[in-house]
């Protein structure tokens, strides 16, 4: 099974990297881009794990390792089933 986890700053946290990318896009003339938020993507390949187990394990490792829950949030999805 393959899962994708997206980690990004919480909406309440200012994202200077995203702002800087947005400013660069404006410089190039893409004025209709109103906001940019930058994040990280993790793609995990799981072996011998049931979808039920993934429901438990993926949020656990996201909270513990992949994201810092003080400032970041995460969403995840299954890309490929076994």
């Amino acid at each position, binding site marked *: 099974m393959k899962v994708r986890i997206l980690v990004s700053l919480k909406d309440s*946290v*200012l994202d*200077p*990297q995203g702002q*800087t990318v947005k400013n660069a896009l404006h410089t190039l003339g893409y004025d209709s881009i109103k906001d940019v938020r930058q994040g990280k993507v993790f793609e995990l390949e799981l072996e011998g794990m049931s979808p039920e187990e993934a429901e438990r394990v993926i949020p656990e490792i996201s909270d513990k*390792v*992949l994201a*810092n829950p*003080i*400032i970041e949030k995460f969403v995840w999805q299954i890309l490929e089933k076994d």
Partner: protein
Amino acid sequence: MKLKFGVVIFPGSNCDYDTLYALKDVLNQDAIFLWHKEHNLKNVDCVILPGGFSYGDYLRSGSIAAFSPLMQEVKEFALRGGLVLGICNGFQVLLELGLLPGAMLRNKNLKFLCQFVHLRVDNATAPATSWV
């Protein structure tokens, strides 16, 4: 009285030798290096996490180092009242380890900031601040 200090080395630490030099040759204290994979603090009185770029700042600054075997010992040591000091990246490790509250954010602007700031001593009874 001499204290025995332990300076922790992670892959990517780069102020480890400066710290050991300052402790031994400037402050005339006992000091040893502690490798991040060890499970034993070797009876040090104080653990120092030096600056640098542990694990190349991968994932988040200090995060991978916080999961190392030695840091689990450091956590227990601190919770028993042991002395722990984190400098720069070492401070970030202490945040990721949960020994200190909060998290660090990027600068709001694109400037590198290096300036004198006012420090307020909130607790003047701690071993590191009692002389203030």
